[in-house]
Each structure stands twice: as structure tokens, then as C-alpha cells.
């Protein structure tokens, strides 16, 4: 893969160097320029659509932001072309923040509708507010940048945009291969799981919107400058569609998808321009059938011929698993009181209070539908309580978002598994370690050595953790290809990678046979031995009674008993509500 990357870079630079010597007339130079601009816009949009999973049909609006920023700054205020391009990116980022806001509340088709609305509003503003934006008449005389005293010619434009494409690719490649790319994918594949390891879904989506907004605004600014004229006719719904189509047709979620998409679709567009009647028809037909045949775009179809070489993992030195420096006071790690949650008439948790002691294994049992999972969701912040208090290490956390509670040291697994199914086992664990990969945004974007060091350390840690949990053989397999029981274990590995103080396990033994359940008991004891406090929901009484220091029993949302396992086992209320009386045939077994 690495050599392919180097080869690609060399080929691209050679091609770029050949542009000045080839006999290309302005028509071809224009096509090359358009490919480049489309690529820049689509590469950023791919971060949003392909990685963070947010479909937008309004990016023409952001393209307009860039173009009009350049036009206004240069024509009306006489600001230099270079500075105007910078301003275009800045304005793009600002508008990216604006359009990101609704994505926090809505998703899927609804979000697409909201972004369509944004595109239409922008289109109408630039068309109708003629005093400022000059409508269809447009801006004349937008200056192009100059280099060493010479204004850009079409040839210069191609070279300049070519280099910008290269820069965009390299920056996004570095960003997407590291913790940010994984965080985007995590948000796309399973939001609650992303939050459970400390990734703020809101921030990740916002960042993706801003990245896509900056590249689209930059593309708009470049088009305005190269064309030296810009009017409202450029900003149409069709442009929004074209940008999205480049990403999806090329292959969303692949680094090279936008490249393939912009080259093929721009060339096709230019070729079909001769037959305007056929142009849109062919376009539609092509999309209809190509996506039917290649659901993952061209990049996805090609990927089948280039199976990913499985990079041998470096023999990981058993990474010293650093744990939270925790004061080993025996006080309560978590104190819950008066916790209450209702959904309409259903009240899964009513006035529950208990405390979790540092370093112990606690179990939460009760009949199906007693509110155990809801209680766990309240503790992890995935569900907000109506009232009541949750104090983690003395700090009130009730009502805080899940990612913040995760950052406070609470890890969890999910009853109905929420793995990042298409991603590898290793990547799942790396996402678990997200908070502890010491690579800030700029380091990741510019591929600073610090980023590489942090990534290597995280990988070594993740491999070591997977080896410890007996998943070392399968680190490159897709998480969804593991059998059910191993998927449960992978959830534990992911939660452990987030280095929690308190680990919440929701039915970790479901789907395990008695032997495997027994082994799970050993795993949980080792986890406890490393200083992590455990709270588990389980129906396997052998496991619960064997490893717990303290058992809490819920029925109809209320705590009906708590205490040591032996006392719970004999408690008549618990026997009546939950355990039942052992039958003869079991005594036989």
C-alpha cells in the first residue's frame, strides 16, 4: 500500500510536470482545472459523507460562500487575491459551523432536506439581493492571483490547482488514517458506541462539516478567480448534486473515490457537452446503473481487485498498560440517589439509589424488563435521567453527555452489540483508545512525527490488549465476521482500551456456553485485579454469584434488595421475583 502511494505521488507529479510541455490548448487546460477544483470540493465532502456519514445536498451554498467572499473582497474592497482566497476558506469554515448545527438534531433523509434548504436559501440570496451580490449580472474583473509579478495564465492555474489537490490529498490522508478518521467512521457506524469511548458525536460531525465547507469554499473561490467573473447562475441545486455524485459515484469513504469521481464525471461532462439533450439523460442513466452494479462506487469496485495487503503487525512489546492514577481509597466510586426515568407511562427506573465501591465487582440482576439496561444507560449518560443524582468520584455527572462521562472514566459494553461492524477488530479497539491517542488535530492533519508516534503507541497497546483477551489471531478481520461470543469479548476489549475506572458490562455472558462463561469470569477477575471497578448485568447466576462482591436486585424499576451474593440467593423476595425454585430436572443435570 505504501509503495502504491509513493508510485501514485510520483505519477501525479510527473503528469503535472508534463502539462507545460504538452501541446494543450485552453479547452483542455480548462478541463484539467475543472477536474482539480471538483476534486478539492469533493475530497472535503467525502470526509463528511463517506467518513462521518452525513449526506449533504446543499454544498453549492458553501461553494457560493467561497466564490462570493473572493468576489466581494477583491472587487468591492480591493483585497489582494491571495488574501481573498484565505478569507474564502475562513468564511467557509464559519458557514460550515452554521450548517453543522442541524446535524446534531436530525440525521439521514431529514438532514439531507435541511441541507437542501440551506442551498436554496443561499441560491435565493445571491440571486435576489442584487445590491450586494449583483444577481445574474454578476461580478466582473475578479483578479487572479499573481506569482512573481505575473498574473496566472490558464497553464499556471492548472499547475496551482494541481498542487492544491496534492496538498488536500496528503492532508486529508494523514487526518483520515489516524484517530480522526476512525472517530468519523465510529460516528457513522454506531453513535452510542462512539460516545461510550469519549468521542463527542457533536464535535466530530461539526469538524467534518467544517472540513467539507472549507474545501468547497476554496473550490468556489478558485473558480471565481480563474473565471474572473462570477454570477448567481453558478449556484444551482445541480451543483450540489454534482458534488455529492462525484463522491458517491467515485466511492465514498475511500481516499481515492473523489479523485476517480471528479476525473470521470468531469471528462464525461465535457464530452457530452456536444449533445446537450443527451447530457442529463446519460448522467442519470449512468448513475442509475453504475450504482446498481457498484454500490460502493468505482473505488469500491476496484478495491476488489486490489485486496488490502495485511500489514504484519509489529511484534508488540507488551505495552505497559498504564491505568488511571487512582487513589485507592475504599470510598464509593459512584453514588446514585433518587434516580428516576419515565418514558410516557412506562417507568423503567424509579427512585433508585445505591453506591459502587472502588475495586469491587458489583452485579445488577432482576427480571426481564425490570429496568437494568435503562439504569446502565443512565449511568453512562446514554439516557438522561428525569431527576436524581449520580456522583462519580464525588462529582455530579447526572445529565452530562455520554462522551463526557466516558472521559470521566466510565467504560461500557452494550447488550445488543454496537460494534463498528465493517471495521477491523484492531480499529475497533483503536477507537476505544481514542481519548488516549495523543495526536491533536494539527498534528494529525500535517502528519507531524508526534502523530506517527502516538499512532504507533496506540497500535501496540491495542494489539497487546487483544492478545491478552485471546483475540490476537483475528485483529485484521471485520468485527462483524466474528462469532457472537467473540464479538462480546471485542466489546469488552474496546471498553478496556478507553482505560476506564468503572466498567459497565451489559450481559457479557449472553451467548456463551458454561465453559466460556467460566472463562469470562476469569477475565472479569483479571480486570478487577488491574484496579478497575466492575458493574455487570447478568442472568447467569453461576457467574454472578461466583465473582460479585455485591449484588443489586431491581424489579419494576425499583431496588428490591442488595447485599452479598449468599444473602441475595436466599432472599425470598428475590427468589419469588427472579430466581425461582430449582426444578428436579436441573438437579439431575
Amino acid at each position, binding site marked *: 500500500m505504501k509503495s502504491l502511494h509513493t508510485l501514485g505521488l510520483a505519477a501525479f507529479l510527473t503528469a503535472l510536470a508534463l502539462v507545460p510541455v504538452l501541446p494543450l490548448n485552453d479547452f483542455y487546460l480548462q478541463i484539467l482545472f475543472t477536474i482539480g477544483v471538483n476534486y478539492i470540493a469533493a475530497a472535503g465532502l467525502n470526509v463528511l459523507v463517506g467518513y462521518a456519514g452525513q449526506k449533504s445536498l446543499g454544498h453549492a451554498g458553501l461553494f457560493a460562500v467561497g466564490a462570493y467572499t473572493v468576489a466581494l473582497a477583491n472587487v468591492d474592497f480591493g483585497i489582494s487575491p491571495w488574501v481573498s482566497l484565505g478569507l474564502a476558506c475562513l468564511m467557509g469554515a464559519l458557514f460550515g459551523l452554521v450548517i453543522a448545527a442541524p446535524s446534531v438534531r436530525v440525521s439521514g433523509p431529514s438532514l439531507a432536506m435541511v441541507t437542501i434548504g440551506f442551498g436554496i436559501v443561499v441560491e435565493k440570496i445571491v440571486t435576489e439581493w442584487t445590491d450586494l451580490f449583483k444577481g445574474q449580472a454578476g461580478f466582473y474583473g475578479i483578479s487572479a492571483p499573481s506569482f512573481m509579478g505575473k498574473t496566472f495564465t490558464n497553464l499556471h492555474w492548472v499547475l496551482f490547482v494541481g498542487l492544491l489537490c496534492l496538498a488536500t490529498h496528503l492532508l486529508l490522508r494523514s487526518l483520515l488514517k489516524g484517530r480522526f478518521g476512525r472517530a468519523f467512521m465510529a460516528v457513522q457506524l454506531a453513535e452510542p458506541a462512539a460516545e461510550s469511548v469519549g468521542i463527542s458525536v457533536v464535535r466530530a460531525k461539526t469538524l467534518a462539516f467544517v472540513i467539507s465547507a472549507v474545501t468547497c469554499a476554496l473550490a468556489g473561490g478558485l473558480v471565481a478567480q480563474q473565471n474572473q467573473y462570477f454570477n448567481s447562475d453558478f449556484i444551482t441545486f445541480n451543483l450540489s448534486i454534482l458534488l455529492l455524485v462525484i463522491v458517491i459515484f467515485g466511492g465514498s469513504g475511500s481516499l481515492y473515490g473523489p479523485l476517480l469521481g471528479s476525473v470521470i464525471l468531469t471528462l464525461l461532462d465535457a464530452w457530452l457537452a456536444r449533445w446537450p439533450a443527451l447530457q442529463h439523460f446519460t448522467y442519470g442513466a449512468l448513475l442509475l446503473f453504475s450504482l446498481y452494479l457498484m454500490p460502493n462506487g468505482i473505488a469500491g469496485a476496484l478495491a476488489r481487485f486490489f485486496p488490502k495487503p495485511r500489514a504484519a503487525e509489529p511484534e508488540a512489546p507488551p505495552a505497559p498498560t498504564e491505568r488511571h492514577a487512582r487513589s485507592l481509597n475504599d470510598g464509593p466510586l459512584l453514588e446514585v440517589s433518587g434516580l428516576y426515568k419515565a418514558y410516557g407511562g*412506562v417507568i423503567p427506573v424509579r427512585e433508585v439509589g445505591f453506591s459502587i465501591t472502588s475495586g469491587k465487582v458489583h452485579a445488577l440482576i432482576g427480571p426481564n424488563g425490570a429496568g437494568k439496561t435503562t439504569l446502565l444507560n443512565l449511568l453512562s449518560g446514554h439516557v438522561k435521567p428525569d431527576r436524581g443524582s449520580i456522583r462519580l468520584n464525588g462529582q455530579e455527572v447526572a445529565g452530562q453527555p455520554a462522551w463526557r462521562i466516558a472521559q470521566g472514566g466510565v467504560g461500557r459494553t452494550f447488550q445488543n452489540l454496537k460494534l463498528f461492524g465493517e471495521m477491523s477488530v484492531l480499529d475497533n479497539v483503536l477507537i476505544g483508545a481514542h481519548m488516549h491517542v495523543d495526536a491533536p488535530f494539527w498534528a494529525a492533519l500535517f502528519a507531524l512525527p508526534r502523530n506517527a508516534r502516538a499512532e504507533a503507541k496506540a497500535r501496540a497497546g491495542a494489539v497487546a490488549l487483544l492478545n491478552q483477551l485471546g483475540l490476537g489471531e483475528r485483529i485484521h478481520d471485520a468485527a462483524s465476521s466474528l462469532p457472537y461470543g467473540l464479538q462480546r469479548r471485542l466489546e469488552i476489549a474496546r471498553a478496556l482500551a478507553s482505560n476506564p475506572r468503572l466498567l459497565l458490562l451489559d450481559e457479557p455472558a449472553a451467548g456463551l456456553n*458454561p*465453559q466460556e462463561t467460566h472463562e469470562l469470569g476469569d477475565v472479569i477477575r483479571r480486570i478487577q485485579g488491574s484496579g478497575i471497578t466492575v458493574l455487570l448485568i447478568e442472568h447467569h447466576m453461576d457467574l454472578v454469584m461466583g465473582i460479585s462482591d455485591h449484588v443489586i436486585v431491581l424489579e419494576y424499576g425499583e431496588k428490591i434488595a442488595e447485599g452479598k451474593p449468599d444473602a441475595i440467593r436466599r432472599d425470598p423476595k428475590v427468589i419469588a421475583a427472579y430466581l425461582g425454585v430449582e426444578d428436579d*430436572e436441573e438437579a439431575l443435570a
Partner: protein
Amino acid sequence: MMLSIENLKVSYGAVEALKGVSLHVGQGEIVTLIGGNGAGKSTLIRSIAGLVKPASGTILFEGRSLAGLKAHQAVTLGIGHSPEGRLVFGDQSVEDNLRLGAYMRRDAEGIEADVARYFALFPRLLERREQMAGTLSGGEQQMLAIARALMSRPKLLLLDEPSLGLAPLIVREVFRVIRQLKGEGMTILLVEQMANMALAVSDRAYVIETGTITLAGTGAELLKDPRVRAAYLGA
């Protein structure tokens, strides 16, 4: 013979999940498959239900080959499937989920009787009759998945880990139902991690390991088999 499988092979990409499995289930029998995680139990169940396409081998149901049949056609023939992992229709009410299980049936009275019967069997579901299935707890969804499979009045019921996520009291209840269904002449192929209880209700059982059947016998024989006890009963 209700179901007979000869030399069944199933692959997922390069991974061979079943490497030539042969087994049979007679009319009115309860047959249990036990095995570790990844042994191929669910794959076998899913191939019978028409959800996985075998690479080779034959599956005969009442003497008729199931090759090339889709999942909904298997249901029409009388194969009911309660899938692992609670796949209920989340945006439909509990009662509608049950009635959807009877989609292929035309006997209105029988359907009403069965709805009443399974509500009686799982009182929790009756309490939540109007609730959307997606808002049920995990264990309640599991009860619903079993009841829905039963609503199709299958000749052969495929139960994939019915005890998953159920409270001990309910697990016993489910096994009581399994015994009762057997009394009514239903044929059941059961995959279950609680091997003790499963073997106790089974006529026969197979042990499956990494895609191959390694042991077969009556439920009582396997319960006593030292290899089974060591590997699967945690004894």
C-alpha cells in the same frame, strides 16, 4: 424423516464455517446442537431457514430439497425460525409483531387462540401489548421473537439460543414450553448454550466443533459424556 442434511458445506469468503455436516431430525423429535462460539451452530440453523446459501450438500425437508429456496418460502413450507439476537419489528406494537408471525396463516380463529396462548405464556408481553417492540427490554424482545416464530405454527421450529438474555425464572418457563410443544407433536431443532437444560429436554443431540459434527447421541448420553461435561457443561 422431517429434516435430513447431507454433507452440508457453507463458506463465508475464505472461511469455511461448515465443513460437511450431516444430521437428521425425526418427526416429533427435539434435537439440540451444542458447541462453542464460532463452531457453526447458527450458520447451520440459518442455512435451513434459507438465510445462508450453502456451497454444497443437501437439505431435505419432508423429503423435499430446500436448495435455492428463499427464507420466506421456507416459512411457507412450515419452517419457523427464532433468530439469535432478537430481530423484532421495532416500530410495530408487541401484538402486531405476534400477528406478523402468522402472516402466512389463513385460520383466523386459530390465530386468535394462539395470540391468547402466547400472551398467557409470556405475561410480560401481555403487559406490554400496545408498546412498540423496539422499546422492550432485551429479554422481552427475546420472548417476543420466540412467540412470533411459534405464531407461524411451524412443523419444524428452529430455536437459536432461546435463553439468551432471559432471567432464570423465564428460562425455565421457556424450557417448559419447549417440552409442552413437543407433547403437541412439534419438531424442534434447538441451539442452546445452556447445554444442561437443553440436553435434558432433548431426544438427541449433536456436538459441533469448528464446522464438523464430532459427537452424536441421545440427550441423556451426552449429558453423561465426560468430553461434553468438560467442554460445554463447565463441570
